[in-house]
């Protein structure tokens, strides 16, 4: 009895504790309830309605929006585009980002400065990034095709050719976000104990063996984390599409976010757009659950 009472410090009456929680957490939670969670539920509700343009009001439509979605070829094309862009992009970003992190781990003189430059794209406004790359990709006077031409290489229509446009979009997304992977992996590299590498070298392991058997496995958690983080973000890409290709040519670079936005804001099909956004919310939630589970697994590993 005595010990149990001693565990509650003076002035920490349970009642005070409850009041404190309310005071500390209350405002933020209330704010999120009103301006985040309520809108999310609102969109869920709208997804069962259809906006009647003539009478300018919502009509109940049941699961109609969702069945329309399944029958909409553009929705499926957007799904494929989004999946390709996410899958390809994350793969490129992980490989390049890890390679860059390993390279910067050589700590060459002046590399901190180059690293600073490489991080810059990640901070830029995606709309401006899109505009910038439209200029670089320009088939008539863009620098990229000029250099390719000088080298005697083919000069593709980066944004005009249906079979290439999605690649170009992925390339720009990777230019902007490879540094994100690089920063995470690089930080992890700095945190690794040096003696592991020394031991491996003493054991006579070649550098390639050290890389594949020691370094990469140690980096794996950071890489997986970065990849999942990026995947969830790439999945909802919108701005860069708007800035670079506006979903075209045709529908070849239309992502789910872009198509949902078009439906909601350009075509005033609020219900349909909300249904599509909700499909995205569900997919993102699955991704997030995996991420959280992975993170908590790691925390248990660490302790």
């Amino acid at each position, binding site marked *: 009895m005595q010990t149990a009472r001693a565990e509650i410090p003076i002035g920490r009456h349970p009642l005070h504790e409850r009041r404190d929680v309310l005071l*500390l957490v209350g405002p933020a939670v209330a704010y*999120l309830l009103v301006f985040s*969670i309520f809108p999310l539920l609102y969109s869920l509700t709208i997804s069962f309605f259809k906006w009647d343009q003539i009478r300018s009001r919502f009509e109940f439509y049941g699961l109609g929006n969702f069945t329309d979605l399944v029958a909409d070829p553009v929705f499926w094309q957007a799904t494929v585009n989004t999946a390709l862009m996410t899958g390809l992009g994350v793969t490129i970003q992980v490989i390049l980002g890890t390679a860059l992190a390993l390279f910067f781990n050589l700590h060459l003189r002046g590399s901190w400065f180059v690293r600073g430059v490489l991080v810059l794209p990640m901070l*830029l406004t995606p709309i401006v990034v899109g505009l910038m790359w439209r200029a670089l990709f320009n088939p008539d006077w863009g620098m990229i095709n000029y250099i390719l031409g000088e080298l005697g290489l083919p000069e593709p229509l980066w944004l005009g050719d249906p079979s290439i446009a999605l690649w170009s979009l992925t390339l720009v997304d990777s230019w902007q976000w490879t540094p994100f992977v690089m920063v995470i992996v690089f930080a992890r590299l700095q945190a690794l104990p040096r003696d592991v590498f020394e031991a491996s070298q003493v054991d006579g392991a070649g550098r390639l063996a050290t890389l594949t058997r020691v370094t990469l496995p140690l980096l794996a958690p950071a890489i997986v984390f970065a990849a999942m983080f990026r995947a969830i*973000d790439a999945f909802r890409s919108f701005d860069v599409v708007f800035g670079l290709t506006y979903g075209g040519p045709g529908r070849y670079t239309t992502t789910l976010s872009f198509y949902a*936005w078009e439906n909601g804001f350009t075509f005033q099909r609020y219900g349909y757009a909300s249904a599509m956004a909700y499909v995205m919310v569900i997919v993102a939630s699955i991704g*997030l659950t995996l991420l959280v589970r992975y993170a908590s697994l790691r925390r248990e590993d660490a302790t």
Partner: protein
Amino acid sequence: MIARRLERALAYVTLVIIAIIGFAPFVILLILSFKTRLGVLEVPPTLDFDPAVIIKNYSDVIFDRGFLRYTINSMIVTSVAVGIAIILGTPTAYAFSRLKFRGRDRWATTILSLRFMPPVAVAIPILLMMRTIGLDNTYPGLIVPYVAFTLPLTIWILIGFFDEIPRELDDAALVDGCTRIGVLRRVMLPLVRPGVIVAAIFGAIFIWNEFLVGLYLINSQTLKTIPLGAAGLISAQRPIDWNVAATVGIVTIIPIFLFSLFIQRYIVRGITAGAVR
């Protein structure tokens, strides 16, 4: 020995190549921004710049096309929204880090998941809500949803920083008769300042670049933020004047570039706050 030196030299060559690739897009953009509308079409670009053209491009973008106004708007919206998010988020993060209460874990996960929600899923309701309360096309109309967007990230980053502060400090202060709020104000706030800076930086980056929700909330020229202003170049029905577009690029990149010089080490802290713990 020779092999080793060669390797070193090769590594430096690689570094230079990476640096060139990293810089090139910005340099090309800068060159394009020094050209006339037709001068852009020259390939390879000539490097004889006319100061009058440069001045014309930049004054056109900064003043006539309103990018000074857009930059000021972005600063107002970003600083107010980040300020509110920090004021709301810091106590919340402290409570999540220190106190036990019912539904804590569920709320923590919900808040994290809000950070990953596709903005398009809330864009329509937010537009309708802001119209209903008459805040569309005003600064608060942007600030209110932007706080909601950054609050989860702010809370999440700050929880990480509070977790790093030893609990013994709280307990000592509580035993000395401090209230919880007092502990937060007098003991924790000075210690968690780096976390507040990191959270503010990441909130600011997000808000500065936000586009999807702002696009339909704001329609008057005098209230547009930078991304909304830049989008005006794209949605215009006529072809883009590329010298102007390039100048817009440079004008909007410069503040971010200056900002990045000061926040370099915080960027790393912020990104890894969740990853390496």
